[in-house]
């Protein structure tokens, strides 16, 4: 009944949940900077929420260290569908300066399908904004897929 509105609102109000997989906090500060007055992510409806159950977009920063790997997987599993994963900074993509260290457990791609990867050692807030908006668009697509799948089940 409200499918068009639900599809549109998946794009218009994506909520973020930030997971720090062992990052040096450089990217964390940038992610928070996105919601400040200058860049104002709230214009597009982005809001940082406290619990993975409320989240649509999961922002992961930092090379996946040994300690944070299980916690990362567990929290990601607890986010309801449809969800997107955005990796901020180059650490999740390649381990950056920490590559080859005993404490690093490979790129984020090993554990989760990263929808949008924002590269850069502390990428600029504009880049993060662009990445988040791209993730919101993917969210809308995923939402559309679920609806088709749900209709498919009822249809058949």
């Amino acid at each position, binding site marked *: 009944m409200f499918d068009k509105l639900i599809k549109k609102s998946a794009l218009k109000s994506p909520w973020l949940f930030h997971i720090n997989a062992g990052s040096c906090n450089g990217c964390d500060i940038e992610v928070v900077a996105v919601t400040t007055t200058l860049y104002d992510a709230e214009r597009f409806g982005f809001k940082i929420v406290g619990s993975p*159950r409320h989240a649509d977009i999961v922002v992961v920063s930092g090379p996946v260290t040994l300690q944070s790997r299980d916690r990362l997987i567990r929290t990601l599993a607890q986010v309801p569908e449809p969800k997107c994963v955005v990796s901020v900074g180059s650490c999740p993509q390649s381990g950056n300066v920490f590559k080859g260290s005993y404490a690093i457990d490979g790129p984020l791609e090993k554990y989760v399908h990263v929808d949008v990867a924002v590269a850069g050692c502390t990428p600029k807030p504009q880049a993060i904004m662009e990445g988040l908006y791209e993730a919101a668009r993917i969210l809308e697509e995923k939402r559309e897929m679920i609806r088709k799948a749900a209709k498919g089940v009822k249809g058949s």
Partner: protein
Amino acid sequence: MLILRYLFYVLIFPGALFTVLVGWLLAGLDRKVIARMQRRIGPPVLQPVYDFFKLVGKENIIPAQANRTAYKMAPFISFVSLSVIMLFIPIFGFTAVNGVADLIVILYLITIPGVALIVGGSSSGSPYGAVGISREMVTMMSYELPFVLALLAVAKKAGGDVLVFNLTDIGEWQVMNGCMAFHWSMIPAALAFLLVIPAEVGTQPFDVAEAETEICEGPLCEYSGAPLAVFKLSTHMKMCVMSALFTALFFGGIRTGYVVTDVILFLAICVLVTLVCITTVHAVTARLRIQHLFKFYWKYVSVLALISLALVWLGA
């Protein structure tokens, strides 16, 4: 015929639909004005609508340890009780259902959504939920004292020496001797009531129970999908109910002859009240700790309400 009229009242006009729309309007304006105060553009006014329908579209996960019936019922009870309260509050002379509830009954009906949130948080089985409901209950205990003092002051002012608890009679009294807020002895009670509204609704300085940073949304931690949408909606509806109650009690004397203009003027005052007491307080202050919140309400705000109660008892 009566059933149809009641059905219309409860579902459309002052009941569910009206409260939902006004709640969304107030919440949208609230976020927009706060953004404007921080010199940023801020979300569109329809943002609460988008939030609601996005959450409805999401998957609803029920934790394994949750007590299923209470977990599912809590958001319903909260939404339903809020939409029923709105019927008893007079909108400038037009009271949907008169003779069902007076001041004390409204006071208790407003605790039902709080209890529904508590039952929901506690039945979700999460430790964050436990800490959240403990803070929510202490918040309820703290704002109850000034709330009661303000209501009793209004009842005494409108009553003289005969007991007047009915909201419509208070409205009639205000029509004869001018709105309650214009009497100087009632100004402290109005101020106390204004300070109680953000705690009852749970916005920024007093949202110790749903603190995102510390206990990840407290009782709402485990909720996702449609129940979470209904809980967020009931918070917005609380904004509408509380500001409507304030307007009815302290600005009840305005009559413009037609119901339509009455309703529009009523909404304007409600928006004004919300902007004053929820938005500005939210933009200016940071979140309190729970014992400071308790001390704030039992010391400063209740003294404010007590002043006006004493003044009214001395015949002012």
